[in-house]
């Protein structure tokens, strides 16, 4: 499926990277910039995986490895004023939104300088200034929320757009249907993006979706849709720009981005459900390799330049982890600071071992 999509794309890099496709100057500059950003995400994620094995990162940790081209192409098509809702595989999206890798890594480490002050962790990155409105750990949870954010924008007559990304498995949850139906009924400025890496955790799209061409789901809502090669950052960018423009004009859009997941579902998943052939094929699909090769074929980057970008990205990742490790843990005295936004009477600030009411002194024994 994705092979067909990819080979049909104009200007796709071939695995052996031999034929220049004739990018315009703008496209060339953009591709180089995209590649640089992709490598930063790649090295950041690899550093995060190491932090996990060092037990500096806890909980679940899902990486964008293989998704870098899609992340970069998607986010580049948004304006600063637009909003992004995403799921638990979102480190790269946060960085692309302009949040410093240091603050993203600090959140993974659960520290006070993290984007969510250590309250969210890997799955719950949030930064209101950069209009990244989460990071959601519940599959599909972000869809109704993003739809509501678009409703608020529409209600006020302003012109921001909401982008809401999800995985392929999310298209089977009820919230997908309910949200797309609402968005279409109410003409909301929202782009729903399916990152189709063809696997839930280990269950394929074909085994979970009766209509495996996921973009076609949009027909149920008379919503425009498109499918794009998510290993090609320029193609993803162009398709997303069209989708965002439609949404800004009040026509919600469903964009399916066919991507890859190079490793397991999360850092602890060895992905034994994949065959040796599949694993081998992944290497030739790796967008860091293919886009790097394309830049070299186009004469936009040489081996030295490529190595320099890589060194820069590694340094950024190292700085992020050093910053995260140096950032303080939250103080236990702040435990009750974020239960309620409006202070409320009788909110219980009781620690696990404490009684509800102070114990009365035992009656003095009569001598």
């Amino acid at each position, binding site marked *: 499926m994705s092979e067909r999509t990819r080979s049909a794309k104009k200007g796709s890099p071939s695995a052996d990277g031999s034929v220049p496709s004739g990018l315009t100057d703008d496209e060339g500059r953009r591709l180089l910039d995209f590649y640089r950003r992709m490598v930063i995400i790649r090295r950041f994620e690899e550093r995060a995986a190491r932090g996990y094995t060092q037990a500096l990162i806890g909980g679940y940790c899902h990486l964008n490895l293989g998704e870098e081209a899609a992340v970069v192409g998607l986010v580049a098509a948004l304006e600063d004023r637009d909003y992004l*809702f995403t799921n638990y595989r979102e480190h790269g999206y946060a960085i692309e939104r302009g949040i410093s890798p240091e603050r993203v890594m600090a959140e993974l480490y659960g520290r006070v300088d*993290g*984007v*969510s*002050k*250590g*309250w*969210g962790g890997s799955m*719950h990155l*949030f*930064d*209101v200034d950069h209009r990244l*409105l*989460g*990071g*959601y750990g*519940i599959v599909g*949870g972000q*869809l*109704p*929320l*993003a*739809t*509501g*954010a*678009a*409703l*608020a*924008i529409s*209600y006020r007559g302003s012109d921001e757009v909401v982008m809401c990304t999800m995985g392929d498995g999310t298209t089977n949850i*009820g*919230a997908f*249907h*309910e*949200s797309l*139906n*609402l968005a279409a*009924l109410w003409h909301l400025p929202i782009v729903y993006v399916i990152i189709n890496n063809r696997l839930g955790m280990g269950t394929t799209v074909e085994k979970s979706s009766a209509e495996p061409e996921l973009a076609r789901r949009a027909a149920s809502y008379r919503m425009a849709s498109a499918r794009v090669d998510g290993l090609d950052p320029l193609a993803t960018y162009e398709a997303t720009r069209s989708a965002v423009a439609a949404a800004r004009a009040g026509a919600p859009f469903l964009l399916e981005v066919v991507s890859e997941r190079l490793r397991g579902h999360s850092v602890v998943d060895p992905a034994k459900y994949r065959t040796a052939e599949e694993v081998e094929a992944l290497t030739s699909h790796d967008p860091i390799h293919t886009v790097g090769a394309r830049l070299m074929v186009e004469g936009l980057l040489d081996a030295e330049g490529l190595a320099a970008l890589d060194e820069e990205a590694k340094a950024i990742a190292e700085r992020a982890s050093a910053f995260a490790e140096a950032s303080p843990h939250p103080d236990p005295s702040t435990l009750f*600071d*974020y*239960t*309620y*936004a*409006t202070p*409320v*009477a*009788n*909110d*219980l600030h009781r620690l696990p071992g404490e*009684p*509800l*009411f102070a114990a*009365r002194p035992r009656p003095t024994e009569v001598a």
Partner: protein
Amino acid sequence: MAVMTFRQALHDTLRDEMHRDENVVLMGEEIGVFEGSYKITAGLLPEFGERRVRDTPIAEEGFTGAAIGAAMLGLRPVVEIMTINFSLLALDQIVNHAAKIYGMFGGQARVPLVIRTPGGGGQQLGATHSQNIELYYAFVPGMKVVAPSTPADAKALLLAAIRDDDPVLFLENLALYNTKGDVPDGDTPAEIGRAAITRRGSDLTLIGYSRTAFVANQVAQELAETEGLDIEVVDLRSLRPLDRATIVESVKRTSCAVVLEDDWLTYGIGAEVAATISDGAFDYLDAPVRRVAMAEVPLPYSKVLETAALPSHEDVINAVYQTLDAVGRRRPAARR
């Protein structure tokens, strides 16, 4: 001050708040053209238009979640979920999102959302349409749950809920919509998290909320007239936070308590109240805390079976008598 029904108090308060604040929008199934299943929103669509009174598809998860998302951007949606039974379809959005967004993201986004929804049985609506599951929401830190029992509190707590920056589940009850009472003029919200002692007394503390607080006041009045009993009534009003201090202070004065609830007994709100009394007034208790609650069955359709399963007026009176007997406080002349 005006006398009006609980329904009218809700309607008027919604209308006033919509006039006061452009960010207040109503969303729910059949609230516009149909004027709401229980007519709370009657007349609001023609007055405010489709932009502010939004009929939604039958999609509780979708529209409740959308209201949460809209609240994150500063709207103040008031969602009507037709009955609390249907809120189960929105449980993930309420529990995993509305209640957690403020904390989980380190205080960066507020969710000023109200979910109005009625519970209540006794109308032969069968097992799926007669539940009282406010407990599910009262269980969750990050949620606020209020449960008025009078038209005055319906107004004051709805004002408070709409103006609060946290998600509030506003519990209504089918049996209360037509009850009448004085409603003060003006614009004074109640304080969420505070119970009210609605009747002072020294013989026994009777505790309830929503419909059961109404029943508690009725029973206390009746037993004062017929038996000369002096019963104190605590109307919880807020289920989360729970005003434990008021409960405990009352029981310290009366030394016995009966808790009324329309939900099932096991793990119910009465269990939390009884445990609170045990923690805070153990030395003062002269009798075990008694709970009057539903029988542990899916509520049947048959009127005979339904009546048998639901707490009755007589059940409450008997529990009061039995508790007073245990304490030795019942006046001999009143024995039946």
